[in-house]
C-alpha cells in the first residue's frame, strides 16, 4: 500500500470532502494559496475550490470561531484552521460556548445543529514557548457539547477527519505537530473511521498505557523498552476523547490490573485525571496499584531543551510510571 505523511493524509481528506459536499468550506489565517507552516494541510485547496470556499483571514480568532458557528447554523460545514490550539484561547467563548452549547441552550429548536470542525495543532517539544506549544486537550474534554479527536498516524487522521466533517456536531480536531511528518499506509479507496472506537496499538498483560496523540508514539517506545525487562505493556490510543471508548480501556485494565495514562497537557484536571477517575469507578476491584499519570506538572511550557525535557513526558518517564505500578524500582 502507498505511504503518506499525516499532513498529506489530512490534505487528501480535505479535498475529498470539499469535492463531495459544496457546503464544506475552509477558513483561517494563511489557509489559501500561500499556505505555510501548519496550514500545509490546506495547500492546493484555494487553487481547486476558489477563495470563497478557502477564506484567508487576518488575525481574527473570534471571527473565525464565531463565524463557523453562524454559518453552521445556517446549513454550512465550515472547517477552521486555528494553526495552534493556543490561538483558540482568545476565542474560548466561540469555541467552547457558542459551538459547544448553542444547540442545547436553545433546546435544539427545530433540531438546529452546529456541524463544524476546529482544526489545530498541539504539542510541545520545541522552542516555541508557553503560548505556542501547549496541548490543552483537557480544556476541550471539560467543555460539554464538543467532540474531540486526536489522530496519531496518517491512516487514522484521514478517516477521522472525514468523519469529523460529516458529523452534525462541533468537532475539535487536534493534530500533534510531531505526528505531521509520520509516514504510514493509506489506502487509495475511501474509508471512514467512526468516533468512539479506541485502537489497541500493542497488546500486553502487565500494565495498560492509555496515551493521547504523540504520547502514543512515545508509549510504544516505552513498551518496547519494558519488553526487554520482561514487562508486557498494552498501549491504547482512544483516538477520540468525546465520545470516549471507556469500555475498551476498562476491559484492558481488568485484564492487566494496572494503568498509566499519558497526556501532554497539565496533569491537574486533565484528560488523564478524567480517564483515571472513570477507570476507578468501573474497575477499582481489579486495580493492583494506584493509577499513574504522566504529563506536564502544571508549569508553563519553557523553552530551553533541558527544561522541556524536564517537564514533558518521554519514553523513560512513561516506562518508570509503568514500573511504579509494578512496584519495580526505577532505573537510575
Amino acid at each position, binding site marked *: 500500500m502507498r505511504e503518506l505523511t499525516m499532513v498529506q493524509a489530512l490534505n487528501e481528506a480535505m479535498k475529498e470532502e470539499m469535492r463531495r459536499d459544496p457546503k464544506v468550506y475552509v477558513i483561517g489565517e494563511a489557509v489559501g494559496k500561500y499556505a505555510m507552516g501548519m496550514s500545509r494541510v490546506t495547500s492546493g485547496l484555494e487553487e481547486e475550490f476558489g477563495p470563497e470556499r478557502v477564506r484567508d483571514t487576518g488575525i481574527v480568532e473570534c471571527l473565525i470561531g*464565531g463565524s463557523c458557528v453562524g454559518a453552521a447554523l445556517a446549513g454550512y460545514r465550515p472547517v477552521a484552521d486555528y494553526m495552534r490550539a493556543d490561538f483558540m484561547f482568545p476565542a474560548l467563548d466561540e469555541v467552547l460556548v457558542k459551538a459547544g452549547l448553542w444547540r442545547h441552550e436553545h433546546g435544539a429548536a427545530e433540531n438546529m445543529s452546529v456541524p463544524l470542525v476546529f482544526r489545530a495543532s498541539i504539542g510541545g517539544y520545541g522552542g516555541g514557548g508557553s503560548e505556542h506549544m501547549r496541548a490543552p486537550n483537557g480544556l476541550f474534554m471539560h467543555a460539554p457539547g464538543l467532540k474531540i479527536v486526536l489522530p496519531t498516524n496518517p491512516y487514522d487522521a484521514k478517516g477521522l477527519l472525514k468523519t469529523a466533517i460529516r458529523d452534525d456536531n462541533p468537532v475539535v480536531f487536534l493534530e500533534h505537530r510531531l505526528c505531521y511528518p509520520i509516514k504510514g499506509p493509506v489506502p487509495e479507496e475511501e474509508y471512514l473511521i467512526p468516533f468512539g472506537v479506541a485502537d489497541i496499538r500493542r497488546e500486553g498483560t502487565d500494565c495498560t498505557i492509555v496515551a493521547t496523540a504523540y504520547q502514543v508514539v512515545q508509549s510504544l517506545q516505552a513498551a518496547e523498552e519494558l519488553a526487554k525487562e520482561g514487562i508486557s505493556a498494552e498501549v491504547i490510543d482512544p483516538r477520540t476523547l468525546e465520545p470516549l471508548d471507556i469500555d475498551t480501556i476498562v476491559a484492558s485494565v481488568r485484564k492487566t490490573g494496572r494503568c498509566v495514562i499519558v497526556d501532554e497537557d497539565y496533569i491537574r484536571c486533565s484528560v488523564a485525571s478524567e480517564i483515571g477517575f472513570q477507570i476507578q469507578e468501573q474497575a477499582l476491584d481489579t486495580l493492583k496499584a494506584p493509577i499513574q499519570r504522566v504529563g506536564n506538572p502544571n508549569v508553563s511550557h519553557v523553552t530551553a531543551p533541558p527544561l522541556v525535557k524536564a517537564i514533558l513526558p518521554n519514553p523513560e518517564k512513561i516506562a518508570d510510571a509503568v514500573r511504579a505500578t509494578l512496584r519495580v524500582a526505577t532505573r537510575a
Partner: protein
Amino acid sequence: MALSNELLVRIYTDMVRTRAIDEQFIISNQRAKMPTAWHSGIGQEGIVAVIAQLRPDDYATYTHRGAYVWIGKGMTMKEIMAEFYGKATGCAKGKGGTHIARPSLGIFGRSGTQGGHFPMAAGMGIAAQMSRQGQVVVSCAGDGCYTRGTVHESLNSASVWKLPIIWLLENNGLSMQVGLDKTWAIQGDLSVIANSYGMPGVTVDGNDAVAVAEAAQELIQRARNGEGPSLLELKTYRIRGHMEGDPMTYRTREEIDMWRQKDPIRRFEQYLASKGVLAQEQLAKITKDAEQEAIEAEKFADESPFPAPEEAFEDMYAP
C-alpha cells in the same frame, strides 16, 4: 423606492405588538412569574421598521433586548412568552429562557456574552453570500455591545468579503448604567466608525419609524445586490432601566419624561393618520388586538407545563 402602505401598516402593527408583549413581560416580572429577567425595550421600537422589511429566509440576531426582532421577524407571542416562563411549550422547550430561537425564521438564538453574536452574524453572512439567494443579515446591538473587540474583527472581515450584513447600532446612550461619555472616546454619531471599515455608515433618528424604514430599505437592497455591508445607527432612548428592578439613579425623571414625548409609536401614529394610511379607529383596533394577543400569550405561558426533568439531558449532541 417609496414605502408601501402595506409595509407601513406591517411596521406599525409589529411596533405595537412589540410594545404589548414588553408591557406584559413587565407585569409578569412584577408578579415574579418568570425564572428569567426582563430587559425592556420600550421606547426603542423604531427598530421594527428595519426588521419588518426582512424576508423569512433573512437572518437576524439580537441581544438581551430582543422583542422587536422576534416579533418583527414573525414569531408568535405564545412561543416567546412560554420560553421566558421556562415552559415545555416555549420555542426552546424551556431550556433557553432568554435564549429565543426560531431557525426557520432566521433567528438562531442569543449570545449571552454581549457582542458575542457579531462573529456569528458574520458567519450567517458567509452562508447568505455562498447561497446566492439574495439573503441578508441584520445584526442588532447597542452602543454598549459595540465597544467589544468582536466588533472590530467582524465588521472588518465582513467588509473585506462584502458580506450582505446590516450592522444595526441601537444607540440609547447607555451601557447598562454607564453613559457614552465613559464608554466611547468619540461622542456624536457613532456611525463614523463605519468609515474605518470601508462601508457606509448612516445615522437616523431611531424614534422616527419612517426615517428608519427609508434608511433600512436602501441598505437592505444594497446588501441584496451584493454591494456589501453597512452600518445603520438608530439614535434612541431606553425608557426603562437596563433590566426590571434597575433603580435608574443615573438619570433624572425630567430626562425620561422628555423622551416620552418622542415616543416612536405615538409619532408614527400621527404620521399614519395624517397621511390617511390608517384611521384613528384602525389604530385603536391594532393596539387592542395586540394587547389581547399578549394577554392570551401570558395565559398560555402560565398554564403550560414545565418540561420533565429528563428533558435537561436531551439535545446535547445532534444524532
